[in-house]
Every structure is written in C-alpha cells, then in structure tokens.
C-alpha cells in the first residue's frame, strides 16, 4: 500500500490516479447514503443465495455418484464355479436396476473381489473394500470367508449380507443378514426323513475346518446319537479308508455336504471298493454331478437323498439367465439367483433412503418382502435369515423325484 499511495500538495495520488480532497468528501457523502444501502443489500442477497446453494448441495446426493456395493466371491480356485455365476447374477441385477433409473436416481456399482474361498484372502478383500473403496455395504459368499469377514462389518455397524450355510452368523452378529441354506436345519431334516425310512445309523462324512460341517453336526445331534464320525480333511481326494470305515461300522447312510469337486471322488471310490451305502446330501448336483452320472453305474447312485431349492429354471430370471449362459448347471443357476437376489434386496431396501442412512437401511432390509426375487423369497425372518423354500429329492433310475 505504501508503495502505491503517496500524499503530496494536499492531493492524494493512488497509483496513477489523482483526486483532490473535495472530490473525496463528496464521494464519501454519497457512499454513506445510497450506495452503502445497496451494497449492504447485495451482500445479504449473495450470502442468502450462497447459503441456500450450499445447504441444497449438502442435503441432496449428486445423482451421478453411484452407490458402491462390495462383493467378496470365490472367483478363482475350487469354488470358482459358484463365484463366477454369482457375479453374473449380480451383473444382471445391476443392469436391470440401472436401466430403470437406479435407486432414486443413483446408479448401483458392484466392486467384486476374489476370495478364492480362502479366509485370509477374504479378509484382505474386505479391508480393501471397506477402507479404500468405501463401499456402502458388503455381500460375502462362502461360509468360512463369511465367518472371517463378519467381525469387520459388525465393528462398523454395517448391515451386510452373508451367503453362508452357518445360521450362527446372523444369530451372533446384530448387523448380519444371511442368505443361502441353513446347514443345521437341512441336516436335521435329512436325518429325520432318513429315520422315517428306517435308515438309522448315519455316518457323518464331513470335512474338517468348515463351519457348515460343524453346523450340520449340530443339526444331526439334535435328532440322533446313532452317528459315526467319518470326517476327512477338506480338499483331500483320497476317501478310501474313510469309506472303508463306514463299511466296518455298518452305517446305513452317509450324510455328506460338500463341494461338487468332491462328489466324483466319493462316488468313484465307493464304487471301486463296492461300498454301496447311499448318501444324504446337499444340492442335487453336489450329490450327483453330471459327470458322476456318466461314469458311475446306476446302482451306486440310486437311493441318494438330497435337499435342494425349488427349480428356478422356468422362472423369469432362470429363463433369462439360461438364454445368456445356456451351459449353466442347476446348482450354478442357484448361485446366479442368489447373486441377483442379494443385489435386488439391497436396491429395494435403499429406496427412499437418499442420505444412505445405515439405520434406515437396516430397518428396510428387515421389512423388505416384495422385491423381484429369482428364488421366490419373501425376505428375511426375525433372525435376519432369508426365508427360502427347499424340497427333498430322491434319485431313482437316472432322475430326481420329489419326496412328499
């Protein structure tokens, strides 16, 4: 200022402008009366307008900013057949939601991470999705990974979906919602139907270190104590000695829940050893895979009992998915349907929740009943377990028939 403003000979020189004192007095007088009022009014108007715009910007989300949903899936490794179909189902749901304008104008974006069905990988994926991608909610598949990830979402009080066979997940964690079947309930149901048919001594052919196996054992123990331990190491492919044990113990049937890659080995080795003890098992395709039908003699497959979901291949989602992926097996179709339903549940529960308030989201998840469900589900029960319709099937002469 001192550099530009100098006073000499009663004149003020500011930069290159010169004013005399009289002129300045007149100018000040004028400012005091009218201009100050106008300037003041303008300042007030500007403050009001800016304030309004700022407050408007804070209360309404930017419509182009998508809602990020994290998905932890087995996209490679032994369970990749499941994860690949789940992500396809999710993508179909995202396409339908976003094509119809998104959720209250906001698009949905799924960020998928590969867990390889491995607990450590799953936790790493969850940390990335929660801390770097800042996802709004998480969907986690496979029971073991779900058990490892649930403490992270609980710590944040984040409502999240776990596609797992372990009902303890929602029972022990307030913000956890569970989809998929319930191993405890289904194993109990399988043994009950077996007992009614005079099948009393049950061998539990279950892998170690798998939460669904522990849950299944709990369900079995609720019905009977006439059980034989036939447990094996998960991913071991040599079942010969365990099957031999089943024969020695004279078990009437073996209760087995596992992965389709195990089923061929089990059937092949029991056929080679001539041990024709039927299996009580999970999905019909886990029980007898397509390739098992080709390589195993019929008499070794008859009498298998499976619990499965209702056939969804004829429904709207099933038809659409099968037209896009015609080679899909019925179990893989179920995986795709779960992926689709989980996205639809979240999108439906977010309607009217422009602030993305987690408490409101939680409440709406509990209330969601009518949503476009591929599995024909009507939402969660009071324990946050998805209500699903299952059925019991028996394999006879090359085909599955429903047990009434």
């Amino acid at each position: 200022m001192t550099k530009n403003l100098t006073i000499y000979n009663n004149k003020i020189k500011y930069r290159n402008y010169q004013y005399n004192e009289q002129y300045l007095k007149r100018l000040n007088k004028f400012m005091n009366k009218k201009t100050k009022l106008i300037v003041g009014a303008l300042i007030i108007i500007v403050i009001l307008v800016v304030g309004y715009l700022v407050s408007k910007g804070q209360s309404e989300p930017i419509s182009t900013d998508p809602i990020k949903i994290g998905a932890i899936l087995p996209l490679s490794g032994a369970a990749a057949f499941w994860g690949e179909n789940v992500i396809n189902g999710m993508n179909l749901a995202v396409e339908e939601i976003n094509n119809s304008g998104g959720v209250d104008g906001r698009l949905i974006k799924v960020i998928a991470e590969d867990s390889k069905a491995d607990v450590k990988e799953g936790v790493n994926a969850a940390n990335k999705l929660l801390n770097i991608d800042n996802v709004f909610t998480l969907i986690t598949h496979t029971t073991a990974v779900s058990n490892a990830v649930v403490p992270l979402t609980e710590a944040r009080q984040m409502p999240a979906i776990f596609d797992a066979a372990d009902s303890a997940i929602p029972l022990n964690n307030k913000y956890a919602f569970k989809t998929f079947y319930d191993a405890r309930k289904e194993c109990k149901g399988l043994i009950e139907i077996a007992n009614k048919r005079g099948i009393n001594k049950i061998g539990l052919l279950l892998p170690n270190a798998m939460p669904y196996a522990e849950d299944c054992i709990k369900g079995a123990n609720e019905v009977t104590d006439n059980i034989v331990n036939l447990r094996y190491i998960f991913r071991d492919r040599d079942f010969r000695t365990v099957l031999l044990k089943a024969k020695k113990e004279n078990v009437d049937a073996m209760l087995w829940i596992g992965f389709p890659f195990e089923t061929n080995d089990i059937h092949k080795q029991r056929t080679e050893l001539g041990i024709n003890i039927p299996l009580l098992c999970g999905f019909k395709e886990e029980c007898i895979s397509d390739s098992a039908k080709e390589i195993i003699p019929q008499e070794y497959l008859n009498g298998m009992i499976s619990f499965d979901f209702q056939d969804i291949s004829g429904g709207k989602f099933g038809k659409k998915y099968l037209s896009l992926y015609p080679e899909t097996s019925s179990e893989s179709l179920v995986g795709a349907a779960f992926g689709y339903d989980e996205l639809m549940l979240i999108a439906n529960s977010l309607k009217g929740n422009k602030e993305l308030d987690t408490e409101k989201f939680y409440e709406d998840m509990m209330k969601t009943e009518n949503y476009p469900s591929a599995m024909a589900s009507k939402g969660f029960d009071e324990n946050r377990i998805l209500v699903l319709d299952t059925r019991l099937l028996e394999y006879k002469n090359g085909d599955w028939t429903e047990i009434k």
Partner: protein
Amino acid sequence: MDIIPQLVLNSIIAGSIYALIALGFNLIYGATKFFNLSHGVMAAIGGYTVFYFAKTLGWNLPLSIVVGVLLAGLIGYALDKLVYFPLRKRKASNMVLLVASLGLFTAIQAIIAILFTSQFQTLSQNISGQRIYEILGGVITQTQLTILISALVITVGLVLLLKYTMFGKAIKAVSDDEEVAKIVGINTNKIISYVFFIGSAIAGLGGILVGFDTGIEPTMGFALLLKGVIAAIIGGVGSIYGALIGAFLLGFVENFGIWQISGEWKDAIAFILLILFLIFRPRGIMNK
C-alpha cells in the same frame, strides 16, 4: 472285499502316488542340493497336457501321455536353463533358489488356472470300463495298479541308471561333490539340466496317473508336493530307495492312523511322523 487287506492296499496306493513325486524330487535334490518347490507343478503340467491333447483335441491317449511326460520334462529342463542355472552361476544361496522355485510354482499354477479355469477335470472314462483286480481280498483298479507298477519300475530304473551308466555315475559324482565333478571333467550344468528333465518328467507322469485315478485341478501340485517332500525327508533326502521307502511308510502310517482315529487327523499324522524323523533321525531312513 476284506477290510484289512483293503486297508493295506489303500496304504500302498497312497504310498505309490507319494513315491512318484518323491522320486523326482530326491533326484533333483541330490544333484542341486536345494528344495525345488516348482517340482509339484510339473504334476499339474503333465495332467493338463493329457487333458488338453486327449480330451480337448481328441488325440490318441497313449500319445497324449507321452507328450504330457515329455512336456513336463522339457519345462523342468527350461526352468533350470532359464532360472536356476543363472542363479547358480551367480552363486545364489539355496534359500534364493528355494524362493525362486516357489515363485515359479505359483506363477505356473496361475497360468494353468487361466488357461484351463480352476474347475476340477477328470481324465478317466466310465468306471465300469475300468478293470478291477482282487488281491488277497482287497481290490485295486487298473489305474492304481499302474501307479504302483510305475513307482516300482521308475525306482528300479533310476537305481540301474545311477549304478550302471556313465550318465548315472556322472549324476552321482555331481551329487557327491559338484566342484570335484567339474575338476574331473564332468559338465555339471549339463548333467543338472538332464536331471531336471528326468525328475520333472517323473512328476509329470505322477500327475497324469493321479489325473486318471481322481482328477486334475491347477492346485493339485501343492498337496502332492507336500506329501512327496515329507516322504523324501523321512526316507532320506537325495536317496532313490529312500524316496520309495519313505512314501510307503507315510502311506501306511497315514491310513492305519486314520483307521484308528478320525480322518481329519491325516495331515497331522503325516507331520508328526516328519517331526519325529527330524528329531530322532534327521537324515532319514536310508541316509546314515
């Protein structure tokens, strides 16, 4: 089918599979003195080569098996030339070689998964088309018998090779002392590369036979390597007879162990056996 003879046969079948991995592993260890972890993935290479040529391209099965064995051997040879030889030349420690082999194992396994997906595949045909033999009340399939015979024939073949051929004597010389072998005029790098070829080809055959018995998956090499290395250590690292004896001992202890206690203890039994050997006989059964 009688229970105990079948249990014995189960142990022999498991032991034969472990032996097919342990034999090549010990041969390579003998010449190089490092734990070549990439050995496990050679089994997967063999299995997937047969799967690709026989099942995808529809080639004749015996020809596909020959291609599978040769390709596993060639990849083992190439890994030595491209990775291990330059590292040895730079006087890299055994730890560096081990880490490099682990890296190669992981990378090749990932490539197989990308090329063929992670799905389990089977090489076998309809089970009723397979012959089943009854031996002393137990049953054994044609494939399992082939695994057993292969393990025995390869053991005898390797022993004869090492004992009666110039090439075998050169391998033994390199195994005993590589520097002295160089002084007496043996091209040790060439010998080591050939050893990699033979050892990897044996692992490739192992992978193919396991593929016929159960099936193949990109990660199959790890489980095979783990049991193969345990068998090699308890039998005596670097010893051909040791690999066979260690493999059968492991097969018997595992199967009789889970016969008495739960099957979920199988790996624990194998590692307890390993630890006992490491404490009481660290050089294994055959090495004094």
